[in-house]
């Protein structure tokens, strides 16, 4: 019982780390970046290579994946993405899915289409059990690790967005870039930073998730739907929304599959549709006041 809850939370947290970057670019910058999964994939592949070819320890790979992918994101932002901000959503979809296609084919070309595997260090592989009977709680160490990383991440992001002016400056820049600039906000830098952080988070998510979700060139397309579900259900105006949504979906999915395996993938989709019909703007919307 508790184990299922634990697995659900870990799975949800993983979805969150993967999707939070998208929540930032889509929710705060109002830019639909369907190539988000490609950044995550880049993080995953970087980790695999750093570990296999360079012998970098797993823990060091995580910040490495974050930084490299963030830099790559920054570079792409400067060169390709910037002209896209003002374009209609459909154009953004077209553009970013094109990028995702290119990433898929390119990885396939350079690395091959087979699954890549991350070799976790020994201390992350074990499992701890407490309690027994109905209250037995089995915790995979790696899942525990994911939960910890994710919790830290959430707190940090939340602090940045609420304790600094960065969040509101970003939204101002999105609402009206011309006037925001005229009122002293350096719109380009704000966007660049946000995009880089969003990409970096995707990279980190990919590095963390490769172990559980697997890693092959189709990654960006395979999981895109999940990321979008998290962001749309969570609402696009905060960090806590997607977190709650990811947890909800993670737990519902794991529990659904455990208790009614026949429902398979139904649970998640049904849940999503019902939630969105009930609250079209997602579970957590930004209202006046806090």
């Amino acid at each position, binding site marked *: 019982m508790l184990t299922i809850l634990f697995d659900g939370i870990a799975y949800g947290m993983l979805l969150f780390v993967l999707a939070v970057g998208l929540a930032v670019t889509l929710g705060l910058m109002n830019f639909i970046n369907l190539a988000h999964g490609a950044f995550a994939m880049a993080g995953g592949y970087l980790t695999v290579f750093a570990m296999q070819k360079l012998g970098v320890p797993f823990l060091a790979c995580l910040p490495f994946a974050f930084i490299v992918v963030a830099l790559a994101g920054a570079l792409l932002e400067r060169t390709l993405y910037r002209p896209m901000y003002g374009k209609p959503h459909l154009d953004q979809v077209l553009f970013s899915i094109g990028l995702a296609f290119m990433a898929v084919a390119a990885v396939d070309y350079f690395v091959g289409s*087979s699954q890549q595997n991350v070799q976790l260090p020994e201390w992350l592989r074990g499992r701890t059990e407490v309690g027994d009977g109905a209250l037995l709680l089995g915790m995979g160490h790696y899942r525990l690790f994911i939960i910890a990383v994710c919790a830290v991440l959430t707190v940090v992001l939340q602090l940045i967005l609420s304790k600094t002016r960065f969040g509101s400056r970003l939204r101002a820049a999105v609402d009206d870039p011309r006037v925001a600039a005229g009122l002293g906000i350096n719109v380009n830098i704000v966007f660049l930073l946000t995009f880089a952080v969003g990409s970096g988070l995707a990279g980190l998510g990919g590095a963390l998730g490769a172990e559980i979700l697997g890693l092959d*060139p189709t990654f960006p397309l395979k999981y895109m739907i999940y990321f979008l579900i998290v962001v749309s259900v969570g609402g696009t105006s905060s960090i806590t929304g997607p977190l709650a949504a990811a947890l909800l979906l993670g737990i519902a999915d794991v529990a659904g599959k455990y208790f009614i395996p026949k429902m398979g993938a139904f649970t998640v989709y049904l849940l999503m549709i019902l939630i969105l019909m009930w609250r079209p703007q997602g579970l957590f919307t930004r209202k006046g006041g806090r």
Partner: protein
Amino acid sequence: QDSNKFKIGLILPMTGQQASTGRQIEAAARLYMAQNGDTVAGKKIELIVKDDVATPDVTKRLAQELIVNDKVNVIAGFGVTPAALAAAPLATQSKTPQVVMAAATSSITEASPYIVRSSFTLPQVSVAMGDWAPKNGVKTVVTLVADYGPGNDAEKFFTERFQLNGGKVIEKLRVPLRNPDFAPFLQKVRDAKPDALFVFVPSGAGAAVMKQFLERGMDKAGIRMIATGDVTDDDQLNDMGDGALGVVTSHHYSAAHPSPANKKFVEAFQKANPKMRPNFMAVGGYDGMRVIYEALKATKGQGGGDALLAAMKGQIFESPRGPVYIDAQTRDIVQDVYLRKVEKKDGQLYNVEFDVIKGVKDPGKAK
């Protein structure tokens, strides 16, 4: 004007989820051509590769175009069951032999009298496991299969044979084809505490199941993992890490099959494709090409589809996997099925065969 050409239309998933199937088969087919020359019975063999992304209506259109426009003599490949089935009516209508090199649902060969299969069927390999397991201390089992044709086949035939042999199947779990996390299913297995978990998932997902199996400490809880060979796919086995050691699977091909023919095959394959290790897909493609070549030789380049088909039926030969023949009645391949255990040789993981069940026909056709 093309009368001195012999065209083979190879329809495979080259992109998308099933891409690795296509890559293996194409590489093997090309290897076969490189080894055996591209002129047979005075005809120049031409291989036309098409990507169907494992989407059946695309398969069907490609097959139709190959037959009508390119006038191919044989269509071959077919990564997934629906694709093979989609092309079947065309094979019948145009009397073109269709050599199925990968798709493994039992019923495929019944869809058209022009279908010949060089791969395997899931019933074939699952019953072998159903025979072996009860004899080796596995009394209770939970099955976990991917929820589609081959998975259902594997579940059905394994369960039947296992129960026949006195085993008990506690629960049958089916996981969605695209399933990101196996945790809930595996936890359910763990809670059911069987002697063993029988797994079939398409190659690619195998690694994930294996990892999470270990992560959940199921091996330590006394649950063994048994599976069809798809799970310990040769192409990926090395990346799965030492956790895979000791997993017992039943399958018709292992890259470690200890025969000279196989050694030669594996060496040549890896020389031509340094990044890959041939797996059961590759051998299906390799043997499929052989079936076509031999049929062409036998008909001396004359005669149409019917003649070719007749010459394909009943072929007996030594494949890298071992001795095989094409059953003249069912047009399905009959082959030895091996029980293998994952072991480490020269720092690499291999499926090492330790038992064999000779001449297994597809049990799906028994009735």
